[in-house]
């Protein structure tokens, strides 16, 4: 069961923000907790949408909720939120900002539709777990994307992520939407 993009995602244009292939399947990081309905204006306010630079967008991540967020976090930290994370705009600046800030993955009870598809298409690892109440801010999590295991190292408790539909897993396995398309074209050529 694959829960997250493979290393090929990093080859997608200039949007790459990760290096080191091992990072993709497992990561450890500190939890930053957020409420329900975190919207894209909170993730990256529209006043910064006049750029697509990951570093700059990363430096303003979540700033209208917590103006020092991007300064406080360490590379690899994890966002844990309630339901409907990423509601609002279609802006992929949200994913670029989260990645640019150094966040390794986002765990939520549910994701808003466009945010979900953008994360899948772009290769931002996301996991849905039933109930985030057991996870506290500051806990350390170990996330295994291939098994869907979210281990709370502070609480010594394991949470299981919901598995993704096969179709979505295919896009993820290809390394994001554009690689999936490239591969399909290649397949079509081979079929000829």
């Amino acid at each position, binding site marked *: 069961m694959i829960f997250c993009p493979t290393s090929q995602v990093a080859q997608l244009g200039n949007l790459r923000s990760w290096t080191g292939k091992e990072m993709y399947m497992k990561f450890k990081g500190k939890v930053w907790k957020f409420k329900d*309905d975190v919207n894209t204006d909170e993730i990256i*306010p529209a006043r910064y949408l006049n750029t697509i630079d990951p570093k700059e967008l990363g430096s303003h991540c979540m700033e209208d909720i917590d103006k020092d967020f991007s300064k406080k976090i360490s590379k690899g930290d994890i966002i844990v939120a309630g339901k409907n994370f990423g509601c609002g705009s279609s802006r992929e600046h949200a994913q670029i900002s989260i990645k640019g800030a150094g966040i390794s993955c986002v765990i939520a009870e549910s994701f808003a539709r466009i945010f979900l598809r953008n994360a899948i298409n772009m290769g931002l690892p996301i996991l849905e777990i039933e109930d985030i109440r057991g996870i506290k801010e500051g806990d350390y999590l170990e996330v295994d994307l291939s098994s869907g295991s979210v281990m709370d190292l502070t609480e010594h408790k394991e949470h299981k992520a919901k598995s993704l539909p096969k179709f979505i897993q295919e896009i993820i396995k290809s390394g994001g939407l554009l690689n999936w398309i490239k591969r399909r074209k290649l397949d079509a050529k081979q079929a000829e």
Partner: protein
Amino acid sequence: MAYTITEKILLAHTDKKSVAPGDFIYARIDLALGNDITAPIAIQEFEATGAMKVFDRRKIALVPDHFTPAKDKKSAEQANVLARFAKKHKIINYFEVGRMGVEHALLPEIGLVGPGDLIIGADSHTCTYGALGAFSTGIGSTDLAAGFITGCVWLKVPETIKFVYSGKLKPWVGGKDLILHTIGGIGVDGALYMAMEFQGEAIKALSMDDRFSMCNMAIEAGGKSGIIEPDEITEKYIRSEGRKVKGVFYKSDEGARYRKVIEYDVSKIEPQVSAPHLPSNSAPVSRFKKINIDQSIIGSCTNGRISDLRVAAKILKGKKVNSRVRLIIIPATQKVYSQAVKEGLADIFLNAGGVFSTPSCGPCLGGHLGILASGEKAIATTNRNFRGRMGHPDSEVYLSNPAVAAASAIKGRIAHPGEI
């Protein structure tokens, strides 16, 4: 097999023999839309793949409407990416400032979207075109890049919630109030991943502009799309724009399956206001009469059309905007602008002490042309009142229809249009 209108449109855009909610499909698109915020990322990704050609230069629309006329150097650079891409790929539907309008008002007005179409747009309010009986949904820049290359999009066939509106509307109540009331009832994720189908005698009686306002805000309930079966009003709208009626007028079958059906008696619905900081915080306007405002915004892809300006002008005629309040009116398109001038609406706004601006998304998403300071409150005909949406994180936005926004500008506090 009985299908909903949404399922029928999706099926017609694949080579499949049948579809069902939950199926993943790879569907052909009739139009792919991008703006000055989202298209630059799509174009960068398109170019990074090494693609040389777009799938169809007639089926791409590029509308620099968010931060234009360019509000700063960086915005100018972003808008310029669109202009260059359009030139390079000979994209017909690129709209420069002066011919531009807020995308979701512009495309229906010029007939780029129509009944039975499948449209994707890298803008969450792309769901607006469902008002014409199209399947239309917001996607991201990566989807848009993929659409530019292949002319297709991956979609999960959504379940549909049917909303049935019966009865006759009260004075000063329109599509905006119906949708705010609906979102208030089901919540900001009440239709998550689902299609919202609006039906009933009250919908049949709604003008196209009101239908656009309703479908525009489907995303504010988490919806994938909003849709209304096209009818004689749709047909009349298309003809009035001077075009031939084409496209397929799909209808939902008797016996089509719905996730649920929710019914409303619209004769009980007052003009609505959504309090900060979620569109779902809606309640009758009478509950907000103690809220003083600093600014009133009339415009956006939700309510910047000619009938919105007409209703505002009806209230503002011969009146003055409260001395503490800024009234900013932004027609959604050049055509709406020109019409408002011809009909004398612009004069009414100016005489009242308001501002009448060139088309732009402007302050709706905190871009420019009316940003709020810390502690300020605005009433706006826009679609989102998230924290900081229109400016400072400590400012507040109340959502309403244009009549309420106009009445509030005069009173200096949130007001029912009947008070004027």
